């Protein structure tokens, strides 16, 4: 009963939202050429998922996403740990990092087009560049924020550099890295779809662009919705991962149900 009442409101709200849009289009408040009816979008989406080309596009987008995110992890985590554990390194790079970070990574898109050509590589490097920062900062903060008691204990037990890394820094930073990973995963999707749209690399982004210019708004909206669903799936997946790594963390233990 409790569960039923729990889902009734969200379901009702969602249905009401789409019904309102449908009504606005049917009554002509919004032109159907600019905003298709939700029912036509649903129909277009239903047709879309039965085509191979749609799944090919999804596959291409996700391939760039996975490779770019993987590259970002491979670079950001070791560098973040190194910078986080050395006061000297941290202060040396601080200014450079503060300057580079606010530059949107797609500012470098034109340069990357020249260097890599219009190719999967281009997408992967743009994604990696954008996804690098949240992961790097989270890893660095995580290493800097290791529990002082644990650190003192490690010192008292005279753990070596190697042991300190594996038993102190890495576990201490894991929850932070998981948070960074969640943020980076969404940014990676955003940059992947965006790059596909701007330079015309195969994937959902390019299909959205094509549908929009071919004057098929229902088709375009269905593709946009599917990119949103991909985003939801990624968010849910990485949220789970984050909560898992945080299970032992004091912040989770202290949390009271509200």
């Amino acid at each position, binding site marked *: 009963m409790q569960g039923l009442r729990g889902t009734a*409101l969200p379901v009702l*709200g969602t249905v009401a939202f789409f019904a309102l849009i449908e009504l606005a289009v049917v009554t002509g408040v919004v032109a159907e050429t600019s905003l298709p009816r939700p029912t036509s979008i649903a129909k277009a989406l239903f047709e879309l998922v039965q085509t191979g080309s749609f799944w090919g596009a999804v596959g291409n987008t996700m391939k760039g996403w996975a490779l770019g995110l993987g590259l970002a992890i491979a670079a950001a985590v070791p560098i973040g740990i190194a910078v986080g554990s050395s006061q000297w390194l941290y202060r040396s790079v601080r200014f450079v990092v503060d300057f580079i970070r606010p530059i*949107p990574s797609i500012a470098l*898109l034109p340069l990357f087009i*020249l260097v890599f050509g219009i190719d999967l590589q281009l997408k992967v490097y743009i994604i990696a560049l954008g996804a690098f920062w949240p992961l790097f900062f989270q890893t660095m903060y995580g290493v800097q924020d290791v529990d002082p008691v644990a650190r003192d204990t490690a010192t008292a037990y005279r753990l070596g550099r190697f042991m300190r890394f594996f038993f102190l820094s890495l576990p201490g930073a894991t929850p932070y890295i998981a948070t960074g990973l969640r943020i980076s995963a969404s940014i990676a999707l955003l940059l992947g779809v*965006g790059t596909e*749209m*701007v330079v015309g690399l195969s994937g959902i*982004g390019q299909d959205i662009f094509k549908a929009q210019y071919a004057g098929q708004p229902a088709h375009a909206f269905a593709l946009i919705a599917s990119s*949103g669903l991909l985003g939801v799936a990624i968010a849910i997946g990485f949220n789970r991962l984050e909560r898992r790594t945080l299970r032992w963390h004091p912040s989770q233990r202290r949390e009271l149900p509200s």
Partner: protein
Amino acid sequence: MTRRLRGFFLEIWLPVAVVGGWWFLSEDSTSPFFPPLRVIVDAFEANWVFERIGSDLLPSLQRFGLGLAIAAVAGIAVGTMLGLWTPVRRATAPVVDFLRSIPAPALISIMILLIGFDDKMKVSSIALASFFPVLLNTIDGVRGVEPQQLDMARAYKLSRRHRIFRIILPAATPQIFAGLRIALAVALLVMAFSEMFASTNGLGFFILFAQETYRIPDMWSGIIMLGLVGYAVNVVFLLVERRALRWHRGWRATARDAGGAA
């Protein structure tokens, strides 16, 4: 003093080394993609002092500022409402979660279909994309207000308006600023994207167009300008944040000291 001096050198050596290294290593560069820094600086001067400030920089800043302002006002207003009004928040949660998961460039596509290619489209895209971080953080901030403060407000029979503007919003300010900070980065990104995608002026357009017409030093100068803009708006934001949260920091410091004394 020597310690401070040493600290200063520690922070400054790498930036100096990066710029100096770039300057000297690129001096004899014949690569068309990586021209000498000297050439880039010349191009920067030719473009941005002050030739294209009015034609490309200002339009970008206008779109960015207007979009972000709309997102901030709408995000805080709607966020406060949803934060206080649990049934509506729960009813809208799935739609909000879905909409905020749509990658921002796809939102630009929606706006092109809805509005067309003009400036309104860019401003709305920026506003819509940066609306969600503000919204979600405001909701969290409003919900995180200390229950004791609300009880107190009730006991003193404060009006709803007073409750919202004197208690709830100030208490939520730190969280709202956290949201605004994310919104700032999103707005900058969407600004650049929308200008690369569908524009005839602006920084994003300038960079991509310079590359397409093979004016590489111009392209580099645009990238550097976009970097400077990103850095500058962040600095301004930090100043505003520090000012707005001054009471909060002070309050936290006192609370900590009192806790330590007790």
